[in-house]
């Protein structure tokens, strides 16, 4: 867990050795420590039941940690009930008050603070403007579309100008097309306001597009923290490699171990990896190779000794901008290969049953030792 600012002064949000044990065997959150910098959008990514929502609920104050500390801007949050924390949350499927109008939903938190009436009106108007819902102020939540409800929920959670904004599956209730549009919009709004944000999602694309840093969680533990690109390109473990995006995992043994390169023998090919790893010759390792980093051709590449595999195309899925091929190698392993469809019509397009050569560069693999 590296400090986001490269050390120095303490992070804005510090989570230290946090544990939540509901009893009954599994620990929901298991000794988690994290630092989130001011103004950052931080994503907790994991499949359902990994503990990410419990962690978020502890930040909001809905769950009491079994042990550990949460410090926000130097203030320990232990013992503060949710209604006293300078934190607001946008709930999964929004939890808008059905009996109140959009206007009253947004004003709800401000009224609790005993803000003067005209200040409330001013703030609500500016929030409505921010999420472009001015026309809908007098509507009830059920009269709005899913996307509009999502924006009301965002406005409501931002209205009190919280120090920390929590987003629980912020786009989970929207359909795919709307989700993609809203991702950008949401980030723009959050950045415009300049609030520090912790979000929870099971959707890796959502985490990658929205967050400045991602923490991958599994079984209550944090497996890796880093910028989206780092987590994707240099996954630390087999689980992370497999969880984020598509990947081909090939088991092999370390044959040559040099400071500037290593060679790994697998069933179908020999990997030449252009960087050193910490290991000993003969140890079992796993090579992770992303489908888009593999090149597919009918003829054998010039240097067929390393980073080359031959197989038969068993399956192809056309996605418009790219095509995913399933190449069956000699050992029976299915190698996923993704090729961008650069040209409209390719005369020699590969198809079912064709023999093909796959090859990749020495800088495309990641060697996983755990």
């Amino acid at each position: 867990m590296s400090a986001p600012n490269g050390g120095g002064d303490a992070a804005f949000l510090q989570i230290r050795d946090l544990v939540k044990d509901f009893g009954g065997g599994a620990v929901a959150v298991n000794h988690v420590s994290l630092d989130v910098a001011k103004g950052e959008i931080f994503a907790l990514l994991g499949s359902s039941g990994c503990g990410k929502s419990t962690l978020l609920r502890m930040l909001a104050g809905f769950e009491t940690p079994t042990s550990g500390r949460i410090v926000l801007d130097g203030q320990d949050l232990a013992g503060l009930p949710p209604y006293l924390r300078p934190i607001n949350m946008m709930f999964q499927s929004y939890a808008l008050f059905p009996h109140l109008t959009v206007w009253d939903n947004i004003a709800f938190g401000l009224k609790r603070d005993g803000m003067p009436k005209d200040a409330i009106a001013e703030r609500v108007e500016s929030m409505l403007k921010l999420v472009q819902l001015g026309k809908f102020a007098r509507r009830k939540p059920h009269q709005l579309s899913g996307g509009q409800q999502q924006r009301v929920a965002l406005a409501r959670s931002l209205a009190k100008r919280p120090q920390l904004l929590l987003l629980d599956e912020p786009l989970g209730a929207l359909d795919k097309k709307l989700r993609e549009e809203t991702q950008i919009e949401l980030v723009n709004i959050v950045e415009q306001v300049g609030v520090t944000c912790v979000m929870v999602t099971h959707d890796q694309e959502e985490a990658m597009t929205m967050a400045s840093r991602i923490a991958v969680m599994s079984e209550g533990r944090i497996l890796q923290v880093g910028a989206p690109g780092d987590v994707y390109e240099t996954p630390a473990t087999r689980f992370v490699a497999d969880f984020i995006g598509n990947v081909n995992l090939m088991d092999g043994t370390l044959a040559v171990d040099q400071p500037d390169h290593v060679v790994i023998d697998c069933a179908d090919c020999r990997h030449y990896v252009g960087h050193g790893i910490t290991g000993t010759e003969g140890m079992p390792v796993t090579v992770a190779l992303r489908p888009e980093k593999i090149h597919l051709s009918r003829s054998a590449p010039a240097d067929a000794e390393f980073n080359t595999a031959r197989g038969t195309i068993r399956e192809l899925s056309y996605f418009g901008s790219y095509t995913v091929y399933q190449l069956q190698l000699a050992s029976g392993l299915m190698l996923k290969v993704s090729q961008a469809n650069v040209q409209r019509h390719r005369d020699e397009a590969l198809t079912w049953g064709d023999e093909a050569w796959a090859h990749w560069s020495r800088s495309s693999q990641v060697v996983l030792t755990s």
Partner: protein
Amino acid sequence: MKHLLRRWLPGGRAVVIGLPFAWLLLFFLLPFLIVLRISVSEMETVQFKDLLTFRDGLLQLTIKLSNYQFITQDDLYFKTYLASLKYAAVTTVLCLAIGYPFAYFMARARATVQPALLMLVMLPFWTSFLLRVYAWKGLLGENGWVADALIALRIDHVLVAAGLIPAAGKFMNTPFSLVIGMVYTYLPFMILPLYANLAKMDLRLLEAASDLGATPFKAFWLVTVPLSKAGIIAGSMLVFIPCVGEFVIPELLGGPQTLMIGRVLWDEFFSNNDWPMASSVAVVMILLIIVPLALFNKYQAEAVERRA
């Protein structure tokens, strides 16, 4: 042939909707019209005169309104209607005050114990209503457990000061015993709709309220209560309406101070044998009950519309 039958026989939908309608028509609207007719009829020894008479080429409609006139003139009726509404209202408020917390904690209880709690609410229905009301006579009478407990706690002095009982230690046949009996009897009718309403409430709304700075009490008052309005109204109607016309409980537990309209109705029918007068009293009572019911239905319809 089959097609012809299908066209002429009512479909399943029509039967499902039609049967309760026919039932209400036959056993509510029709009797009501009969009572209404009697209330404006003239008595002729033991028979009612026809409203429409045709004699010497003269068609005559006779509607006798003197009974209704009498109801407005004799303040006995006005007072008893008022007393009925008052006791019904007090009972409703008390049922709500006792029933709401009960329903609330029942709805928040662990899912495994909820059926048992629900069973406890409905358990009294397993014994005869008459028996249960009669039992209060023993409990509140001289040397009754409840009476002794109230005396020991010196609550009877408070009740005397409040004018609910005439003298310390005397609980039976007072407004106090009447209200106890009515609250006891009608409490389940308040709890059940409230429970049904509160149990389906989305608890995340309370979390959202808390997250936005509402204390638990504020969250309850600003979120739970408004969202359970439909349950509050349904429960209140189920208690208020039968309470207005209640006859058995005032008869068994009430006293000279607690004359209610049910008793007056009984006397008109069976002591005075003045059926037109009794019918008029009944018609006014039905109107007193139908007005709040109509308001309730209007509210329900609006709520449904809002949810749609």
